[in-house]
């Protein structure tokens, strides 16, 4: 099982790397979905089964579909890929890469000083998570629902004008 964790971790990292480097938006999305699925597997292996399912259902299955949906609505074609390719000249990677490398070095260095231990490997199932959610985290759940409501209203309001615009389009 440990091997599965590391394999999926490697898949996740590679897929994420491909996500940010591809020029075709849909390909990037597919790589990210792949990365999400790998993350889901990692969660599952870590014993977080509920979240593992959530990643796939919500993150990969709903949020990313939204992305695809929007991409399809905007009808981002091959010319967009060319544009992306033109923008992604090698030198643009240097600054962010260096910055991230620095952060990574700092992170590894600071993590290297501690040995917290290992993950337990015990399954923490949906029941426990649900009990925690509607026990000590009840207020947070309410707030999250408020946030979702706000997101819903915001998206509705913002999207309305666009939809009428789309309708008018021949």
């Amino acid at each position, binding site marked *: 099982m440990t091997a599965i964790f590391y394999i999926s971790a490697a898949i996740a990292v590679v897929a994420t790397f491909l996500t940010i480097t591809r020029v075709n938006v849909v390909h990037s999305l597919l790589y990210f979905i792949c990365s999400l699925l790998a993350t889901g597997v990692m969660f599952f292996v870590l014993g977080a089964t509920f979240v593992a399912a959530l990643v796939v259902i919500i993150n990969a299955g709903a949020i990313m579909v939204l992305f695809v949906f929007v991409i399809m609505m905007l009808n981002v074609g091959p010319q967009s890929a060319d544009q992306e390719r033109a923008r992604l000249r090698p030198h643009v990677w240097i600054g962010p890469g260096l910055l991230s490398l620095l*952060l990574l070095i700092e992170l590894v260095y600071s993590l290297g000083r501690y040995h917290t231990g290992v993950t*337990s490997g015990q399954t923490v199932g949906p029941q426990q998570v649900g009990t925690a959610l509607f026990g000590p985290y009840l207020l947070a759940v309410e707030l999250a629902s408020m946030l979702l409501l706000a997101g819903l209203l915001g998206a509705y309001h913002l999207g309305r004008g666009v939809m009428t615009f789309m309708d008018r389009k021949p």
Partner: protein
Amino acid sequence: MATIPVETGFIIAGLLFLLGLIGVLVRRNIIYILLAIEIMLNAAGLAFVVAGAHWEQPDGQVMYFFVLTMAAAEVAVGLSLVLQMYHKFNTLDANLINRMRG
């Protein structure tokens, strides 16, 4: 189930996060930026879950649940904004819509 060092989990999370950061910094297409933000959120969630798995507590998963909630709300609004932006400016380049000058 697997037992892995917590630091390893954190480093993987950190790697994913930094990849997301690079994505935000490098890409100019607003959809890519949103995508990279998703990557970062997911990486942060991974760190939570790893910590939760270490302590054998549901709290890590609870935090991931909230991260997911936030991501969902953010994506809903963000994508609506992308649609509006495309509608108004006919471009997806985040650099071209910096009208909010100081």
